[in-house]
């Protein structure tokens, strides 16, 4: 016998207890397969009376039930099997919705085409990231892949870690690894998103994937500059490499954006922001971790000068 799950009756608060039933499946509950604790059979009624009698003998507080007069014997069934069935159906419905959402958005296969590359392709794109294109009248092709940019970001993380270790950087709130990863991924994802947003406002013909790829490969120049200057501490060398290699990678990105944007004002806005952010980021990476090394060297020189100025001979002779 099937009964609709109405939640009404002397069950007392059934609808409020169950809440809104939004499952797509049927709300009909099959009462034929209920367990022995449903309270709908004569044996269960006897069992209930026996339990109440035992509780009175022990002196415990009787189980609170709304049907003290025993008028409706199905209340226990509503709270027992019916409640479990409702909860189970809600759980199954929620699980199905979550699985659908995960299969749609969380499937790793969505990203699989962007990692299908050959070593020769990655090498060519790395070289091209330092060669500014000359033709800006036609939209320049941007590789829609993520392997190279991702590896370059991780390489920058490793270079930053190396720089922080050699300079003795101490991060009080956090870790070196977290700082490096946050800085590099924050720049890559944040600036890509910001420039893409600017491109959307200025009607630039570039997708988010292409922006990520373009900026990712644009980090090849900074990687080279930092790898050299973290090991050879010369300000003049850094400025020279910053201008040449950093400038080449910036020019490459700017040229691609120019070819994909129409309008002088729009081109100026996008390319100006991109160039400024890219060059300033390289400056920041250098000076944020280089100053400590510079400071330590100055300190050592001062200490050596002070030690050498002490009249050791006179002290030895007791004068």
């Amino acid at each position, binding site marked *: 016998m099937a009964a609709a799950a109405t939640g009404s009756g002397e069950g007392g608060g059934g609808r409020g207890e169950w809440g809104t039933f939004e499952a797509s499946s049927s709300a009909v509950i099959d009462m034929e397969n209920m367990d022995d604790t449903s309270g709908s059979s004569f044996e269960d009624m006897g069992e209930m009376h026996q339990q109440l009698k035992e509780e009175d003998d022990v002196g415990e507080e009787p189980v609170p039930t709304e049907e003290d007069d025993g008028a409706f014997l199905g209340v226990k069934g509503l709270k027992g099997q019916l409640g479990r069935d409702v909860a189970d159906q809600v759980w199954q419905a929620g699980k199905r919705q979550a699985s659908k959402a995960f299969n749609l958005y969380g499937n*790793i296969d969505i*990203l*699989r085409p*962007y*990692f*299908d*590359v*050959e*070593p020769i392709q*990655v090498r060519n794109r790395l070289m091209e990231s330092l060669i500014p294109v000359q033709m800006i009248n036609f939209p320049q092709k941007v590789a829609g892949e993520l*392997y190279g940019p991702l*590896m370059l970001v*991780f*390489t920058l993380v*490793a270079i930053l*870690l*190396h720089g922080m*270790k*050699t300079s003795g950087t101490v991060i009080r709130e956090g870790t070196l*690894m977290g700082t490096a990863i946050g800085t590099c991924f924050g720049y890559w994802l944040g600036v890509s998103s910001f420039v893409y947003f600017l491109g959307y406002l200025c009607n630039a013909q570039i997708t988010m994937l292409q922006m990520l790829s373009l900026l990712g490969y644009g980090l090849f120049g900074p990687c080279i500059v930092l790898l050299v200057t973290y090991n050879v501490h010369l300000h003049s060398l850094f400025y020279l490499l910053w201008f040449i290699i950093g400038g080449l990678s910036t020019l490459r990105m700017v040229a691609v954006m120019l070819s994909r944007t129409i309008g002088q004002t729009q081109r100026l806005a996008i390319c100006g922001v991109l160039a400024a952010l890219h060059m300033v980021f390289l400056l920041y990476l250098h000076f944020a971790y280089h100053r400590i090394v510079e400071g330590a060297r100055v300190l050592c020189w001062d200490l050596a000068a002070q030690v050498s100025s002490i009249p050791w001979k006179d002290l030895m002779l007791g004068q």
Partner: protein
Amino acid sequence: METSNFHEDMDGLVQQIGINFDHIWQKTLTVLNPMKPADGSIMNETDLTGPMVFCLAFGATLLLAGKVQFGYIYGISVLGCLAMHTLLNLMSVTGVSCGCVASVLGYCLLPMIILSGCAVLFSLQGVIGIPLALIVIGWCSLSASKMFISTLAMEGQQLLVAYPCALLYGIFALLTVF
């Protein structure tokens, strides 16, 4: 008679819990000799006994050098395994399990133990230490990429697999050197 029965029982027990000493030895030799071809069927096994021992040995050798880095080793190992597992599943057609990735990366940590053993004897922050560290990083990444491409049939992409392995082992080298 009782001794032979005891050894037989022990061998059976070891096999029941999935420890194959022959495969462990084969994998260790494959790591130590980067030029030796890797057997794809053996490399595809999820064996974490050797990697766990190697991680502990790495931490112990660092401890001998005065560095308590067990937490960093385990944390970087876990994150590195997850990242490599994701990357290899994106790059390969067949896919690979996380246990297999952890097993291969763990076995290829063996040369890094040699480097950390050298750190006990002399400082690696010098003319000898940096090239030695670079050689060990290349050794580890070459062995790991060789095992991965034999398991996933990714011939022609060994460099693409070796580079992220080199980045991961570079982090371990930073722990060892500094």
